[in-house]
């Protein structure tokens, strides 16, 4: 298939690797950055920071609740803590602590959940995270982000450190397509339109952004012009970009590696209903837990592919007519 877009989508590092790199750079730039982990530093990639800054690395052992509250205490003492674990453990086991020790007093603590979504593959549903964004968005005052590639991750992790207030960022285990090139600007809460389009808008976060770009090529070959937007910040949403897309393309597909019920799609629909109603379709995990398998196999089986996005877009365009 001819690639219409300027995006080559070459395989780059996993966003968790980019997170590890960003932490080390942050550690060099700011002595107040402290990193916490719960016995997963080799997987979350905080190990690089631990090696270079052992005095500012807090190994908490397998005790996520304690880790999250400690992060709240460190933030209250003026530090900029980044606590990390797999997304599912961080959000599910640390949720009450994020509520009471972080969101409620609005402390300046940052959380990065790696191995998010279902693309971790073989380890299966107990380690997968399909509810993390719903939970994080339910915490008043939290900023919630899901970067798509290496550059986006580095930029947004650094932006999180400079942002005053609690932040949750999700990252993934598997290598992902490179979308951005040097010089790209990233701003919390500001969506990035990757491609112009007039018939339908594809909105995504994380690894589904690349799938949307691929879908736009499939659609282009069929004469459907698809706009593609990287909604890297899930909260606060870029309402303007959503309203504009709704008015101009009159159909929106939201694609995400998360439960459809309470993820970005539901949040976008809320903005659409308030600002400029249009037809919407959703691609995501449908009211179920996934299963073990190769990451590609799992993504395929649970419908998180460019072809599924294209199918949803065709349906939206048809319904519009």
């Amino acid at each position, binding site marked *: 298939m001819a690639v219409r877009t300027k995006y080559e989508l070459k395989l780059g590092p996993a966003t968790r690797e980019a997170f590890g790199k960003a932490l080390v750079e942050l550690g060099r730039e700011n002595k107040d950055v*402290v990193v916490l982990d719960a016995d997963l530093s080799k997987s979350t990639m905080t190990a690089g920071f631990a090696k270079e800054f052992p*005095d*500012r690395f*807090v190994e*908490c*052992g397998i*005790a996520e*609740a*304690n880790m*999250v*509250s*400690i*992060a*709240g*205490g*460190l*933030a*209250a*003492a*003026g*530090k900029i*803590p980044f606590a990390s674990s797999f997304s599912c453990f961080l959000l599910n086991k640390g949720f*009450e*602590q994020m*509520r*009471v*020790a972080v969101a*409620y*007093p*609005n402390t300046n603590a940052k959380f990065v959940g790696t191995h998010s979504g279902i693309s971790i593959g073989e380890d299966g549903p107990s380690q997968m995270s399909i509810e993390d964004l719903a939970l994080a968005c339910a915490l008043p005052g939290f900023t919630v982000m899901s970067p798509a590639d290496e550059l986006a991750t580095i930029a947004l992790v650094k932006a999180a450190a400079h942002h005053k207030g609690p932040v949750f960022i999700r990252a993934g285990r598997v290598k992902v397509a490179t979308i951005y090139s040097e010089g790209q600007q990233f701003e919390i809460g500001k969506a990035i339109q990757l491609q112009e389009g007039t018939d339908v808008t594809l909105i995504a976060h994380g690894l589904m952004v690349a799938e949307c770009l691929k879908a736009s090529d499939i659609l282009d070959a069929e004469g459907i012009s698809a706009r593609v937007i990287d909604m890297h910040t899930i909260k606060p949403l870029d309402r303007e970009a959503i309203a504009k897309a709704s008015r101009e393309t009159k159909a929106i597909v939201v694609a995400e590696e998360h439960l459809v019920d309470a993820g970005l799609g539901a949040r976008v629909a809320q903005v659409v209903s308030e600002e400029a109603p249009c037809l919407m379709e959703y691609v995501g995990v449908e009211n179920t837990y996934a299963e073990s398998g190769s990451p590609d196999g799992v993504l395929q089986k649970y419908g998180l592919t460019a072809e599924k996005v294209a199918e949803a877009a065709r349906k939206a365009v048809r319904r519009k007519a």
Partner: protein
Amino acid sequence: MTQTKNVEELAAICRTTRRQIVEMITAAKSGHPGGSLSAVEIMVTLYFDVLRHDPANPHWPDRDRIILSKGHACPVLYSVMAQCGYTPVDELKNLRKIGSIYQGHPDVRFIPALEASTGSLGQGLSIGIGMALGTKLDGRPSRTYVILGDGEIQEGQIWEAAMFAPYHKMDNIVCIVDYNRIQLDGFTKDILDLEPLTDKWKAFGWHTLSIDGHDIAALQAAFAEAEATKGKPTCIIANTVKGKGVSFMENNPKYHGVAPTQDELEKALQEIG
């Protein structure tokens, strides 16, 4: 405010604190008198003797930190903070009312001089550990004190924190268990027994003391011993009486979370003196 080591002066502050506790809870018509009264000597000794703090400069970076993890006992906290000059005494009567800084559980949004918002049990020790790590990283002399309820330590997170602090040799944190032996549903021994309590903390690696939590001199000695103990954190098991100072509330599970009536208030004030 003036700090004092004089036991008589501290005892007088305790009487004022007890009066304010029963008055504010009666005015609020709800609240937790039993666990507030059991912690009076602990809180007064900390705020008026032990703590290095400056109410005129509540965010002084080198200050000692204090967290009332058993947040439902906030009337005792509000009373001592008000007497120290952090907050207005005359507004204590507005406890639990709309717009009052004296919220139902401690809330830093309303009293910025508080170190933490508490009320959901089990988290104060972990938050305190975070503060103690932070102040240590900055090379500050600050010490962190966390007051735990006895029922509260049934929460699993307490034991995650209890495992963490000794392993990290944190001698700048002290936890005090207000061991009044009563929780909402009844006596701790009948709900989920905590014994052998001292042995548990010792086994986790804490320098552990068991004292009479209403004996001001014993509290002073325990805090001094904690400060002199290097290389490990200290846990002070303060054996107390729930509802202490008001005969009909003492050792009575009913007064965990029930406000006194006007008649009961008058009786209570007479007894407190």
